[in-house]
C-alpha cells in the first residue's frame, strides 16, 4: 500500500509540477513543501526520533537521534554497547561527551550561540517559516549537480560568530527541477582545521514518514569524496521522547582518595 501511495505521489509530482520557467525562490520552496506532503503536514511536526547508522568509511555506528521543534536535540550512538552522545543541544547550550572520559562537556559558548541562532531553528526543515527565523532566500539560477538539473536557492541564515568575529552565514540548496526536492546543499566550513573548504550534503531516499516525504539518507562530501553517510531506517515524527536525554549530565563526582 505504501509503495502504491509512493508511486501515486511520484506520478503526481511529474504531472502537477508547474512550468519551470521564471522561477522565484519562494515558488521553489512552496513547491517543495507541497510535493512532500503540504505545508500543514510539515507544520504539525513537533519532534522526531530517527534510528539509523552513521558510516565513516568502513566504520559504522548505529545511532538514535532525537530532535524537537524547539531546537533541542541529541544523537545517541551505540559504541560497543555503551551509549555515547557525540552531539546534543539543550535549548541553550551544545554539549557532547568526551571520548576519553565518556563524560558530558559543554561546547564553547560561541558554538552554542551559533547553533541557537541557526541550526536549532532548522527542524523539521530550514525553509519552513524561514522568514520568522530571520532567514532570507534568493534564487541563484539553474545548475547541474548529481548529474541532475537543479534550481539553486541560497538560504541566508543568521550571522554567526567565528573566533570572536561576526560572519555572514549562508547555505546553497539545490532543488531537483523535476520534483522540487532538495538533493544537495553546500556550505563553507567556518572553523576548525577544514575552515574555508566547502562541504556538500546530498539528500536521497525520500520516503514517506508520517504525512510527509523525508530524506532518509544524508551523504556528506568534501572535495568530491563521501566522508560521512547517515542512513536512517526508521523515522518517527511526534514520537514520545524522554526529554531528559537533552539535559547535559553532571560529571561524576570522583570517589574519595581518587587521583585527578
Amino acid at each position, binding site marked *: 500500500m505504501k509503495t502504491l501511495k509512493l508511486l501515486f505521489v511520484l506520478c503526481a509530482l511529474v504531472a502537477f509540477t508547474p512550468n519551470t520557467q521564471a522561477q522565484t525562490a519562494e515558488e521553489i520552496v512552496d513547491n517543495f513543501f507541497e510535493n512532500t506532503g503540504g505545508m500543514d503536514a510539515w507544520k504539525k511536526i513537533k519532534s522526531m526520533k530517527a534510528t539509523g547508522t552513521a558510516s565513516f568509511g568502513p566504520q559504522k555506528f548505529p545511532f538514535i537521534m532525537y530532535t524537537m521543534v524547539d531546537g533541542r536535540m541529541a544523537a545517541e550512538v551505540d559504541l560497543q554497547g555503551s551509549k555515547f552522545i557525540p552531539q546534543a543541544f539543550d535549548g541553550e547550550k551544545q554539549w557532547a561527551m568526551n571520548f576519553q*572520559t565518556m563524560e558530558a562537556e559543554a561546547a564553547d559558548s560561541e558554538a552554542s550561540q551559533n547553533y541557537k541562532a541557526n541550526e536549532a531553528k532548522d527542524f523539521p526543515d530550514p525553509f519552513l517559516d524561514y522568514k520568522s527565523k530571520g532567514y532570507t532566500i534568493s534564487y*541563484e539560477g539553474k545548475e*547541474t549537480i*548529481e548529474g541532475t538539473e537543479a534550481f539553486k536557492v541560497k538560504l541566508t541564515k543568521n550571522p554567526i560568530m567565528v573566533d570572536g568575529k561576526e560572519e*555572514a552565514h549562508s547555505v546553497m540548496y539545490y532543488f531537483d527541477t523535476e520534483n522540487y526536492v532538495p538533493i544537495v546543499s553546500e556550505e563553507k566550513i567556518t572553523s576548525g582545521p577544514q575552515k574555508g573548504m566547502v562541504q556538500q550534503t546530498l539528500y536521497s*531516499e*525520500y520516503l514517506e514518514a508520517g504525512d510527509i516525504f523525508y530524506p*532518509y539518507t544524508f551523504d556528506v562530501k568534501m*572535495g568530491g569524496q563521501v566522508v560521512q553517510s547517515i542512513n536512517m531506517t526508521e523515522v518517527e515524527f511526534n514520537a514520545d521522547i524522554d526529554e531528559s536525554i537533552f539535559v547535559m549530565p553532571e560529571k561524576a563526582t570522583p570517589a574519595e582518595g581518587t587521583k585527578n
Partner: protein
Amino acid sequence: MKKAILFLGALLVLPFTGSAQEIALKGKELFGDMNARHIGPALMSGRINDLEMHPNNTRIIYAGTAGGGVWKSVDGGATFSPIFDEHPQSIGVVTLDPKDPDNTIWVGTGETWTRNSVSIGDGLFRSTDGGSTWNEIPGFENSERIASVVINPNNTNEVYVGVLGALWSDSEDRGVYKTTDGGKTWNKILYIGPSTGAADVIMDPNNPNTLYASMWEFRRSGWGFASGGPTSALYKSTDGGANWNKIHNGFPPGDLGRIAVAVAPSDNNILYAVLETEDKAKNGLWKSTNSGQSWEHLNNDFGLVVRPFYFSRITVDPRDPNVIVKGGLNGSISRDGGKTFKDLGNMHSDIHDVTFHIKDSDIMYSGTDGGVYRSWNGGTTFEIVENLPLSQFYHISVDDAEPYNVYGGLQDNGSWYGPSSSPGGVNARDWNSVGFGDGFRVLKHPTKNIIYSEMQGAQNVWRYDADRHKTKTIQPLQQKGKAKLRWNWNAPMAVSHHAPDRFYMGSQFVHKSNDMGDSWEIISPDLTTNDPSKQNQQDSGGLSMDNSGAENHTTIFTIAESPLDENILWVGTDDGNVQVTKDGGKTWDNVTANLTGIPANTWVYHIEASVHGKGIAYAVFDGHTSGDFTPYALKTTDYGKTWTNIISEDVQAPAFVRNIQEDYENENLLFLGTEMGLYVTINGGKNWSQFTNNMPPVAVHFVDLQKQTNDVVMGTHGRGVIIIDDISPLRELSQEVLSKDVHFFTNETFTMKESSGFSGSFGAETQFVGRNKTTAARIIYYLKKRHTFGKMALEIQDMDGNRIITIPPGKSKGINVVTWGFFGERPKMAEGKTFAAGGFTSTRVPAGKYKVVLTKGKKTYEHIIETKYDDTSLTTLAERKEQEKYTMDMYNMVEDLAYTVHQLTETQKTAQMVMEKHPKGKKTAQKLYDALESLRGDLVITSGDNYVASAEPELRERMGTLYSNIASSYDRVTQDRKNNYVLISEEYTAEKARFQKIMEKEGKKFMSFLEKNDIPKPAIKSKEDFLVK
C-alpha cells in the same frame, strides 16, 4: 471496449521505435561523481599576480594567481582555500568593496604580468557573498586582462575598471571604464588606441574624484615582445574620469614604456612612479610631492628598472609615506622616501606584489613566481605559505612504477618528479628536484632509472641517474659546418617506445641519439619555415631589452614517434608546419598544406601518434600568440594526406587547445587539454563534454594516460598535477549502456593491496597534502536517473548470497564510483565501561568472487567482482588460509563473549529489580547479582576511562587485541600469537564454565523465584538477534 483497452495496453508496452533519439549526455550528467584529485605540488607553489587585504579584518587576505584562480585566507595568511574554481583561473586583480568588504569582491581576470607563457582571462566577476557565488559583469567579455578595479569609498556604485586588454593583437576593449550604477552600465572614459591598455588605475585616498591612470603601449608575438611607444603615458583626472591630462612634468622626452604608479595612503600629495624610458639613466623611480604636478628622478638601481613588463608594482606603507616597496627580481624596500633601497629578504625570486598588514607594518605579504610569502619583521625574513598548489606545469609524463610517478617541469620552478600516491597523501617531501631554471619536459627512460630533464631553450638538457645521483648534460650542440641550432623556450624531447636508449630532441632539426644523449645525429632538414623575420630575438623587449630566449621561434615544438613503427615520426613546429617521416628520417613529407581550417603558421602545439593505426595521428594547433583563441584539433588516418576537424561546437573560444590524448583501447575516447580546462569525447569528437568535477577550468598544458591504471594525468599551468583515476568506464559508454537504468562497468580483478607503514602528519596543519588514489575496489556503475525517492542499498555478498557488508551507494545520474576496502564487518564487542580498541578492526575477505547487489526500490541488480591477493604478500597461501581461520575464530569468540556479557547483564538487571522491589527474593537475587558482578569484573573493564585513568585490561580487551593483531596483520600468524590464542581461549572456556556454574547454582534458585512470583524473566535476546548489525 475490452479490445480497445487491450490495444492501448499493447501500445504502452511496445518499445518506442518511431524516432529513437540518441542519448547525448554531457558534462556533469555523464561524469556523475567521477572526480579529479589534485596532488600539487605546493612546495614551490606558483606565480601570484595580485594580493588584496581586507580593510578592517586582519584575518582575511585574497591572492589572485597567475593561473590558479582566487584563493582566500581566513586565518591571516596561514592557509588559503580556492574560491573561484568555476571560472577562468588567470587573475589580474582582486578588489574588495570598501563599504562591504566582507561580502562584495570584484575579480578582474587575465594576468597582467605579460610574460611569454601568460594565460588569458575571460571577463569581470563579482561576488556579493564573500566568494561563495560569482556573477559575471557584462561588458568585459573581450577584456582578456584586467589590471585594476577601483571603487569610490563614498559611493560604491561608482567603480573604475582598468583594462590592459589583448596582449597578442589590437583590440578596442582597452582603457579605463566607469560605472555609476554598480556595474549595470559602463562607459569607456579613457581610451588611447587599439594597442594601448590601462596598466594601472589608482584613486586618491582622500578624494575619489582624483584618479591616476598609467597607459601602456605593448605587444607580444610568438617571436618578440615590445614594451613602450608614443602612446604610453601617465594620466590624471580630477573630475571622476571626465577629463584626463598627462602629468609628465619632469619626465624625459621620448617614448615611455610600462609605468608603475602609487599614491601614499598617509599623504595624498606624494606619488611614486616607476618609468621605462628611452634614456636608461632616467629609468626607475620618480617621486612627486605635489600630486603629480612635477616629478623628481630618485633611483635607477637594478631592482627599480628590472623587466618593467614583469615587475611594475609599488606599494607604499599605509602609515609611512617614506617606506616603499617595489616588486622585482628580488623586491626592493626603501625607508628614506625612495632615495636608497635594499633587497627584500630571501624568498622565491620574481616579486609581483607586496602588501602591508592593515595594522602592523612589520607584517608583510609578498606574491612571487613561487607563491605567497609572509614576513614578520618588516621584510627581512620571509616564510612561504605551504598550502597553495599553484604549480605551473609546461609538460608532464608518467612512468610505470607502482604507484606511478609523475614527471614535469614548471614555470621558473625547475623540474620535478613525485609519486601519484604516497603514505598519508602526496606531501611536499615526496617531490624530487631534477632540474633548475624553468623546467619543461621531463621524461623517464623506459627501462632504466634515468630521467631526462631540461631548462629553458635547451640551455641544459640533463640525464640524471636517479640511483647513483649522477648528472650529465647532453643537449645537442652546434657542429662544425652545420647551422646554429634554434631551440624553443620549451624544447621538445621524446623517448622511443621501440629502443629504450633512443632519445630525440628538436631544434629546427630532429636530433636522434641511440645512446641516451651521448652522441647525436641530425635526421631531418630544417623542418620549420625558417622565416628570418621571426628570428630577431636580440631585439625583443621594446624600450628595455629582454632577450631571455623566451621568444625563440621557427623551432620544432613537438615530436611524436609512432608506437606502432619506429620509423614513423611526426613533427610539429611553432610556425605551423606538420611534417612526417615513414623511414626514420630519411625523407620527410611536409603535410602542412593538407591541414583544413587552420590559419597559416598556427603553432602546432602537440601531435599524438595513434596506437590504433600507423597512419593515424591527432594534431592540435594554438593560435593564441597571434590573438586567435579558436580551438583547433585535427585527425588524420592517412599519414597527413587528409585531415578531419574533431572540434565540435561544445568547445568554444577562448578554450584554445594545447594537448590531446587518445585512449589506448577505444579510438573514439579522447581527452582535450585546453586553456579553459579539460574536455572529453566518447564519440571521436562529435560531441565534447567539459570535465568539471573537482576540476577548475585551468589551462591544461599536457595530458597523459597511465597505461596500467588508466588514469588521466594532467599537467596544469596553475593548479599542479590533477588526476582522474581510471577512466576505463568511459570506454564502455554506448547508446546501449546509456539507455539502461543501471549498468555496472566491467572491472578487472582487484588486487587487495597489502601495505602498511607510517606516514607522520607533521606540518599537515598548514601544508597542502595531495589526495591518494584509493587502494580499495572501485565499483563503478551508471544510473540513468538520480535516485532520490525510495530505498536504495548496495551490498557485498559472497557467492552464496550471504551479506558481507553494506556500503552507502552513489545515487548520482551518470557514473557512480563506490569504494570497498575488502572489509567485512567489525565484531560486536561485549559492553564494558570503556572501549576495547581491538573492536574497531574489521575482518578482511579472502580472495575470490563476490556479488555486488544493488537494490533500487523493488528491483535488484547484480554484478560479480573478483579479488586477488597481493603478489608482494609476505605469506604463503596456506599461511594466509590459517590466518583467515584464526581471524574468524577470534571474531566468533569476541562475539560469543559479547553475547555472554549480554546474558549476564540482562540477568543482573532483573536481579537488581528484584532486589529493589521484591524483598522476599532479595537474598537470592543478591547472591546471583554478586556472583555475576564478580565474573563481569574478570570479563570486561568496569572502571576508569579511555585515557590515562584506564583500568587494567580484562579478558575482553586482551581477546580484542589478539583478534585485531591477527586480523590486521599482513603476515602469517606467529607461534607467539598462537600461544596467546590458546591462553585466551582456555581462559574464556573457563569463564564460560564459571558463568554456567553460577547460572546452574545461584541462577537456578533465582529463576525459580521469578517463576513462582510471576516475574518476567531477563530480556535475553537470541544470539542471532543480538548479533544483528
